[in-house]
């Protein structure tokens, strides 16, 4: 064919027609990535073709294989960017709701104070990158990268809808949870590497807390998986098209909610960064942008927790009675913000719990409750009620 006009280079194909299309179903972020590359790569190819007419590079740039490869890279960036914006919105939501509850203004910069978090991020970015002298440098840096990295990775793997996902595979929920549950090891490593007594105590607390809350969480997830018969997130959501799992598993929902607040290390369970006795917890020696990234990672973990609650108990992107909507992503995000609102309410109302109390609650209350929930699901399943 003749490549004489720019329109021949920049063609917005349906990405499903791409010979290398990696998914079975339509994927919006991939579509955005593919179209973005077709625009950028097409323009580049056209410009190169203007300079050197009839070269091979231009046609290579718009070939199916290159479009696919770059579409996947752009897709990941798009998914991360959207996750990042969701996170900023959650931080803004938290600060606004906390401000309202505490009789103060919350954020102020930008429209409705939305850009305050951006400003705070820039502020931490401009701070001096202080690394204490006696830290174990290797673990100090690696643990930090891994804490944030696993959090962000797990958060990006949360699908916003059946068409907005990184990958749709059969052990989806388990993979997210596995990545999510890696954090205590890295936190322990980071706290030990800092050569600081406060960090060390906080690291022990974090490990104790998270490990003892992961078990009830996993048991509760087992109940949901039992009811659905699938590890696939799509399967779990589709099984809730008629009834949200929070109705038959109300006990499990409440327990999971409490565990999720604890797992995401948010107040009232933020004893790993109990600032009144342990300065800044396990993040004490992480200054400047490192701390800013840890904060961001914390909110990513909060987002994962909200996402898991919505996916497991609140029907994901489906609405009861209506089913799928035109923009299921917005339905999912709205549900996430509602769940996060209750996270914020807990932070607003409840002081921090002590470590022995929280472990008692975890092992002696939440653990039996999750087992009871599992038993109820098994009974209902065998009785044919659900």
């Amino acid at each position, binding site marked *: 064919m003749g490549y004489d006009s720019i329109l021949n280079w920049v063609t917005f194909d349906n990405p499903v027609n791409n010979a290398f299309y990696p998914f079975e179903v339509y994927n919006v972020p991939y579509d955005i990535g593919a179209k973005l590359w077709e625009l950028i790569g097409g323009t580049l190819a056209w410009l190169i073709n203007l300079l050197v007419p009839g070269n091979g590079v231009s046609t290579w740039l718009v070939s199916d294989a290159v479009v696919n490869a770059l579409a996947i890279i752009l897709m990941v960036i798009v998914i991360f960017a959207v996750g990042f914006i969701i996170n900023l919105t959650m931080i803004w939501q938290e600060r606004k709701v906390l401000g309202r509850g*505490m009789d103060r203004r919350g954020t102020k910069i930008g429209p409705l104070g939305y850009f305050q978090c951006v400003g705070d991020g820039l502020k931490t970015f401009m701070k001096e990158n202080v690394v204490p002298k006696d830290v174990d440098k290797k673990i100090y840096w690696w643990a930090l990268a891994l804490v944030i990295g696993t959090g962000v990775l797990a958060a990006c793997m949360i699908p916003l809808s059946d068409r907005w996902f990184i990958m749709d595979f059969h052990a989806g929920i388990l993979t997210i949870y596995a990545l999510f549950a890696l954090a205590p090891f890295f936190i322990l490593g980071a706290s030990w590497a800092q050569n600081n*007594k406060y960090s060390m*105590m906080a690291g022990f607390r974090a490990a104790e807390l998270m490990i003892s809350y992961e078990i009830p969480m996993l048991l509760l997830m087992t109940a949901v998986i039992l009811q659905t018969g699938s590890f696939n997130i799509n399967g779990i959501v589709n099984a809730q098209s008629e009834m949200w799992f929070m109705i038959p598993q109300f006990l499990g929902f409440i327990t999971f909610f409490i565990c999720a607040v604890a797992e995401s290390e948010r107040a009232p369970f933020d004893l790993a960064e109990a*600032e009144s006795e342990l300065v800044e917890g396990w993040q004490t020696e992480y200054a400047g942008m490192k701390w800013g990234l840890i904060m961001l990672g914390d909110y990513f973990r909060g987002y994962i927790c909200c996402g898991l609650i919505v996916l497991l108990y609140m029907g994901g992107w489906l609405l009861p009675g209506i089913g799928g909507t035109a923009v299921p992503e917005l339905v999912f995000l709205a549900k996430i913000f509602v769940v996060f609102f209750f996270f914020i309410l807990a932070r607003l109302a409840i*002081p*921090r*719990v002590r470590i022995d109390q929280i472990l008692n609650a975890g092992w002696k209350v939440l653990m039996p409750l999750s087992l009871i929930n599992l038993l109820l699901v098994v009974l209902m399943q065998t009785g044919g009620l659900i």
Partner: protein
Amino acid sequence: MSELSRTGYQTDKMWVTMGPQHPFSHGLWTLRVKVDGEYILDAEPEVGYLHRGWEKECENRTYAKIIPMADRLCYSASMTWSHLYCKVAEEALDVELPERAQYLRVIADEICRIQSHLMWLAALGTDLGSLTIFLWCLREREFFLDLNVRLCGQRLTTNYPRIGGVRNDMPYYFERDCMRVVTRFEKALWDIINLTDESTVFVNRLKGISYLTRKQVANLGITGPAMRGCGVDYDIRRDDPYAAYDKLDFEVPVLKEGDAYARYMVRIEEMFQSCELIRQAFNALQKIPKTSPYRLKVSRNIPEGTHMARIEDPRGDAMMYLVSDGTGSPYRLKVRSPVFVNVSASKAMLEGCRVADIPAVMAMIDMCLGETDR
């Protein structure tokens, strides 16, 4: 301590130095604690970072000039400290306060007590990790600071009592404003109590930790709400009355439990009693003619001798000891700070607690470093 004796294996004990710049120490002081994991085995307070030679400085000033300095002893109980200084000077001069000044001092003291206790509750809120309690308490405190402004023109360093009376009579609108604030506060305090006492987490954080017996209280010299939370029924306002406290009817809250929660409850109840005292004092003031004097003329020089006065500070038993040599400035002015004595009990209070309890337990002595280090 039976919980602590882990015979099976040895764990390393370590000393953790908390302070002088640490979020839990409200002010500059250091608490060194020896911990076994999360348990506290030993504690040792170190104060003195804020020592500024207050007592020595007083020896170079005339008696009148010490009043604003006494304000600076404690940022949140300035009224009681300047009241205490004026009281010791009046006792040395052997003057009887005019009745109007007595009631005005009671009102000012009780406003000061409420705002000081609110500051304490706010700090307790952040110590326990609830910023809501902090901000709600500070919001209520602001109304009482506004009352200070209306009465004497300053929020914190009030400089209101004078030797032989008070600096000025209250403005004509003060009673109205004060009654409004007090009525509002009695409702608002219930809001805050709903946030604290109704919350199981909050109560569980304070209940059952840091028990003190009456014997320990006596041996360590603990005074104030910390003492009354351990079942010692003693309040200078009632048992050695000054100003107009003997003409007013109020209760001294005493709880027998002796744990941190009892100390918390005592302070909360004291705030309600202070509201009652303010109300009664205004009722009594109405019977006193408006033209009656609020300040006496007194001599600039204090006759030779030694004198002692004490007062119920929001933090405990505040005392001043004055040695005068007949000139216009004191020969020696000694301050007995309640917090300085109370903080020495930190070992007894913290032993057997957990690291997470440190802020909550130490909040119960309501640290104020200005008066501790002087």
